């Protein structure tokens, strides 16, 4: 699915250059569930942003589905992203002005899908995360766990090949956290590749592989039995 070769990401301010990722080499195969762990500031989020094509590397290669995308411009990246990648965030990032249904539908609006089909797919996605009964509510009217379920529905409604989750349980209590992890495992079982950044070892255990980052470098990789 994706391959990072000697990937470097450096941030420059006027006087200081900070290397967030230093010669990272990672290979994620189709259908894998990879957890990325590491202390704060180790480069987890930078890595996820590049993998999600929200940011570009300073150097190195990024192969996605056999295509080298590291030099692509924003327009091309947006197109690949739209077709292949779904995102789940720690802070849910639902749009306050839109209802649950509309938030999920948003992910289909940029895909030229007819309204009727959109409706069906949104309803199916919402049912899948057990939040169908709340489709006309606004995000503020939901609990944190419910909001994250909506976010998951939004991430999967366009049927992406890969799901990127940035600390998806970080803002949730343990019961809701476990529920979210169960859903991710289910999605993975259905064939979706998942790359997840997490601080929680118990939640990392749901993954098939754990990659540890430290100071921008991959320091350990543990393959886990599924």
């Amino acid at each position, binding site marked *: 699915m994706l391959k990072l070769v000697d990937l470097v990401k450096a941030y420059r301010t006027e006087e200081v250059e900070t290397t967030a990722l230093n010669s990272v080499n990672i290979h994620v195969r189709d259908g894998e569930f990879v957890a990325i762990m590491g202390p704060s500031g180790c480069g987890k*989020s930078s890595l996820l*942003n590049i993998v*999600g094509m*929200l*940011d570009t590397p300073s150097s190195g290669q990024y192969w996605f589905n056999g295509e080298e995308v590291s030099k692509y411009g*924003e*327009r091309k990246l*947006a*197109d690949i*992203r*739209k*077709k292949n990648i779904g*995102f789940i*965030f720690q*802070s849910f*990032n*639902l*749009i*306050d*002005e*839109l209802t649950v249904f*509309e938030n999920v*539908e*948003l*992910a289909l*609006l*940029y*895909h030229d899908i007819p309204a009727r089909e959109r409706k069906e797919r949104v309803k199916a996605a919402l049912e899948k995360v057990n939040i169908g009964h709340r489709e006309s509510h606004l995000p503020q009217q939901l609990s944190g766990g419910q909001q994250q379920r909506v976010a998951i529905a*939004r991430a999967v409604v*366009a049927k992406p090949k890969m799901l990127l989750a*940035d600390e998806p349980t970080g803002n949730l209590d343990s019961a809701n956290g476990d529920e979210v992890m169960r859903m991710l495992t289910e999605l993975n079982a259905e064939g979706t590749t998942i790359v997840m950044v997490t601080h929680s070892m118990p939640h990392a255990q749901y993954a098939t592989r754990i990659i540890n980052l430290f100071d921008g470098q991959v320091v350990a990789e543990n393959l886990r039995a599924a």
Partner: protein
Amino acid sequence: MLKNYLMVALRNLLKHKLYSAINVTGLAVGLATCVLILLFVRNETSYDRFFTDNDRIYQVAFKAQLPGRQVDHFAASMLPLAAAMKEGLPEVEMTARVIQNSVVIKQGGESFSETARAVDPDFFRIFDFTFLRGDRMTALDDPNSIVLTESMARKYFKDQDALGQTLDIDGSAPAKVTGIIPDMPSNTHFDLEIIRPYAAVAQAMRGIETNWGAVCCETYVRLKPGVDGKALSDRMPAWFKTTAPTLNSPTGNVVLGEIFTPRLRNLKDIHTDPVMTSMRPATSYAEIITFAAVAALVLAIASINFMNLATARATQRAREVSVRKVVGASRSQIIMQFIGESLLLTVIGLVLSIALVELALPAYSAFLDKKLSFNLFTDPLLGPALLGLALVVGVAGGAYPAFFLSGFNPARVLKGASSGVGGGSGRLRMALVVVQFAISISLMVATSVVYGQLLYAQNKNLGFEKENTLVLRGFPRSVDQARQQTLVEALAKLDGVVAAAGSSSTPGDGSENNTNVRLPGANPDQMLVLRQGGVDWDFVKALGLQLVAGREFDRNRPADQLPPLADPAQVPAGDTAARTYAGAVMINEAAVKRLGFASNEDAIGKQFEVGADDDGTNKLTIIGVVADFHFRSVHDPIPPALFVINRDRFSDVLVRLKPGNVQKTLVEIERVWRDMFPNRPLNREFLDDRIQAQYVREAKTSQMFAAFSGLAILIACLGLFGLASFTAERRTKEIGLRKVLGASVMDIVRLLVWQFSKPVLVANLIAWPVAWYFMDQWLNGFSFRIDLNPLLFVSAGAVALLIAWATVGLHAARVAQAKPVTALRYE
């Protein structure tokens, strides 16, 4: 997708009510202001376009350069011109002259003074006025016919059909109504109510019918189809030089072609080309453009509000933008979304502005004395024009925020939910606030200067007593001199009257009579033209003029008066001595200078010659000099003038009243008049009213300017209020911390107020030089003008600052008074 955009936009509007209200109100007021100004501009530029042949109808206008006088432009011409043009210029198809005259109409035992216009037969063939009754082509064929406007017809015939009825005009043969036309629309330069054929005044005009020196009518021509009016206009001066005769007078030859330069003004341009002697006040292009510019500036201020508030609130939309990007929106889609939102807001503003315009239109039309129409259903251009306006404002206001908002980095925004935005746009916002206030301050300065000049003009010492001076107008010229004298004497004897005097013209009446003067020993080619006034014994007292040298006319010295003209039959040809009449003359200070005397005193006792009406010569001795006084608006220079006792030319009587009990005196004057002229209504007005009337239009222009400037400032303040409220909200945490650390409410208010004082102070630095330059240019157009006072500029700046303080301060005080704990819980 569109539905989603619309939904998000509407929900955002509802959620951020203050922001939406400020934007929509600002846009609505801005658009309404703009629409009102543009309605005015459209009306001003639509004059006379409703006449079918407007492209080939022209009016002859003249530039006059009298020796020693500044150049004058006027729309009047000489009676023989029309026929000469028809004969000498093959391009001319038809001509028509229009001559104004005062008439007295008697109806049902009552007499009314009216202003009528006598026109040539082709007038209604050139100008296709709608005839409600009667036949346009033949209406004026009969010398005793008359055409009335609807209002006039109603005035004299109430609800009856006026067509075919007769009116008694000036006691001559009854005039038969042969046509009724609608009242003049507001967008024509014509001011017509009663129209008669030229034949009706031919007798009165006989004396000047062939006189190329008497400027007394308007001349219109219709050119043959395909004729280039501009080219013909360019040829007019040369043609005029060869056509207009040289006037030979005993005091020198006057080459009219050198004094008068004719040109053709297309009918459509007449209203926007101000000259003297227009039937209705004209508006210069410069003035129209100024108002259009104010409209654009007001809109710019409203658009800036939108830009500023949209970018300031960007953080609140950052997450939405980022999520949209993450799920696949391209930057151009986001840009379109935000421009769309801006358009939506503008359209809401537009709908409100239409309501505002509808509300304001009746008062506005009444104020401008115009019939301005604003009807979306009957005016096919209006709808598209308004939508176009909204489109321009929406895109102009929305483009920058759209580019700014669409540029967010979703990775950073979504991680921290609020990071990665703000930055450089804060400086731009302040720069835009500077622009808004620079515009506002400039408009404030401009308004003050325009008002200042107006007040100066209205209150300037005009050199005569305008208070309590009554002008009895339309003094019957036909009346013999003895009765004139009796009337003036009877008026002078009244208790409440200081002095009374007949006069050929009075200040502010716009008429002018000039004469060629020759100093003894001067070269006959050397022309010295002075304005000539025929006055009465007490004219200095009646006008309250200041005598600066010599003496006034003295009725006990008969030699002060010109002797009666000799009977030409009794004087042998060539006997110039018999046709030389000695008399006394008074002049003004400008004439002292023009005639080259060393001082006012030096002029006394000196002599010069002026042509007499029988081609003889008046040899005049200067007996007195009066201080300069204004004949016309103070905007015009004071011409050199001479005054002689000459009752032939009296048209007005000046009556200076004693202050107090004026009403009683007016009643007595009315009685004296009625006793002498029972069939002629007394037409009187106070001189100061007439003087003020000269400035009515300027006063209106100033008021309009002030109102629109006020609105501009209001909109700018709305934006500042929005920005201040946003800043206060954003700095809540900082404010809380400052308070925890010991800051007082006053400290906090000062902090916020200072933040918004800076752009206003900087705005002054831009506004002052710009306003100074333009207003100095404007004032240079006046012969008598105020000086630009730096204090005025400082005051405008101070007012802007105070308004800004008041706007921001209230907000700051509220935020500063909140408990610090509330502030610290923020976020």
